């Protein structure tokens, strides 16, 4: 099987514009949650595209375009693509798609009638708008589509991209996820199902956790076939070692109580990578700060990794930037590969009070250096679990 490497990363997150901004600020313990939400306050669309491009993109797609530009530049893709464009794919994930566009146009429909609905409503709100925009902007003519699996979509997209390269459908795939859910309907809907934190605090794995904090943003990675990337002299950030996906078939929103589905995704990813639990040095947890997820994920980690689960650092990016829904897995994969590169486990910000049975090393408050013993580049898994019982785990290794 061909190896698949990460050659470029880009991100727009509540911590700022840029993948390295995310990594450096999270590692330093910064938290972007303000008034119970985590908006991308530093993002100004005029810095990233023309007014015409901006008008034709929902906020989620605008994030994807900015993150995509950064990722392609980071990969050293100049004006000319490094491979036949028909062998470069694009797969992005989203949980909801262009919900801001949908809500605005529904307001117009209700208030002033059907003739007022924008002709741009469909191309802006369709869930595949992000992958379409990156394909158009960069001339990517390989397989192009989006993946929808709620809060696991970003990881499913990356896993799908990995398979496309492994199977020879593509030499490279631009992949990741984007979401812009800070809208009235989305806020109300998540609040009504008691998923959001009423106190507005994201503190994954802490006994006082009471729900997630909604964020927004995008993460984009450039994956390339390892042999092709090396042949063109690309700088390699890390390797995508494995991918595992599973379904709970248990409940539409609640995870399996013993974390069986999540554990299976992790075990499949490890098997796919050819690793055992002893090979894992760090876990980037799904860690949403909801009562159900964080307990079930802790159990899933113990089930999948056995005693190794209590020997390695496990932290949640959502403690710093909230929950980016369908973008979360992509942004967290980027945070993971940069953490591995620096041999560090960024912290779970705000973790203070342990809960009975949740006794893993959640890296409270301050980043920890990874403890490495066998001399090979460190390995991590990154978990994403979505409503519907969708579980996806990525296994990454530093270069």
């Amino acid at each position: 099987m061909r190896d698949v490497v990460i050659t470029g990363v880009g991100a727009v997150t509540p911590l700022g514009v840029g993948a390295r901004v995310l990594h450096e600020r999270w590692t330093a313990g910064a938290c972007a949650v303000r008034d119970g939400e985590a908006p991308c306050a530093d993002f100004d669309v005029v810095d990233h595209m023309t007014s015409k491009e901006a008008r034709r993109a929902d906020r989620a797609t605008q994030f994807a375009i900015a993150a995509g530009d950064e990722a392609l530049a980071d990969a050293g893709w100049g004006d000319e693509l490094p491979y036949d464009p028909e062998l470069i794919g694009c797969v992005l994930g989203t949980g909801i798609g262009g919900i801001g566009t949908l809500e605005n146009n529904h307001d117009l429909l209700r208030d002033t009638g059907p003739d007022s609905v924008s002709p741009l409503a469909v191309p802006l709100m369709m869930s595949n708008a992000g992958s379409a925009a990156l394909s158009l902007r960069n001339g990517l003519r390989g397989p192009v589509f989006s993946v929808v699996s709620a809060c696991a979509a970003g990881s499913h997209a990356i896993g799908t991209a990995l398979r496309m390269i492994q199977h020879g459908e593509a030499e490279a795939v631009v992949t990741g996820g984007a979401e812009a859910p800070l809208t009235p309907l989305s806020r109300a809907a998540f609040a009504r199902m008691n998923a959001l934190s009423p106190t507005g605090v994201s503190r994954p794995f802490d006994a006082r956790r009471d729900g997630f904090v909604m964020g927004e943003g995008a993460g984009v990675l450039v994956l390339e076939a390892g042999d092709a990337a090396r042949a063109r002299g690309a700088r390699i950030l890390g390797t995508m070692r494995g991918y595992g996906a599973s379904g709970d078939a248990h409940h539409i929103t609640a995870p399996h109580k013993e974390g069986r589905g999540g554990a299976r995704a992790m075990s499949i990813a490890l098997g796919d990578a050819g690793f055992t639990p002893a090979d894992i040095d760090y876990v980037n947890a799904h860690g949403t700060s909801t009562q159900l997820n964080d307990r079930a994920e802790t159990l899933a980690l113990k089930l999948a990794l056995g005693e190794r689960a209590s020997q390695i650092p496990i932290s949640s990016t959502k403690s710093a930037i909230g929950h980016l829904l369908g973008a979360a897995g992509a942004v967290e994969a980027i945070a993971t590969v940069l953490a591995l590169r620096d041999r560090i486990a960024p912290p779970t910000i705000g973790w203070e009070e342990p809960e009975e049975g949740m006794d893993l090393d959640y890296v409270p408050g301050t980043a920890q250096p990874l403890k490495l013993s066998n001399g090979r580049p460190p390995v991590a898994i990154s978990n994403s679990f979505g409503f519907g019982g969708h579980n996806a785990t990525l296994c990454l290794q530093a270069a």
Partner: protein
Amino acid sequence: MATTTTTTPQSIEDTVVESLVNFGADADAITRDATLEDIDVDSLDLVELTQVVEETYDIDLDGSDFKTVKTVGDVIDLVVAKVG
């Protein structure tokens, strides 16, 4: 949104040009002779322009009305004729 001022060919031209600029066309490049391709105005822009014109002048345009236009001048003349 009905106009409160008198509709003239010049005011219609102003509405068309203002719309094209709002859609992202370069204001300096908009002349009567400029082709829609020159100023990067495509079919989606024309559908939006149809909506603006219909709302502004309270008229109905046919979806096929813009099918033969090539230049900004063609667009302006067509709208002036329809508003009549």
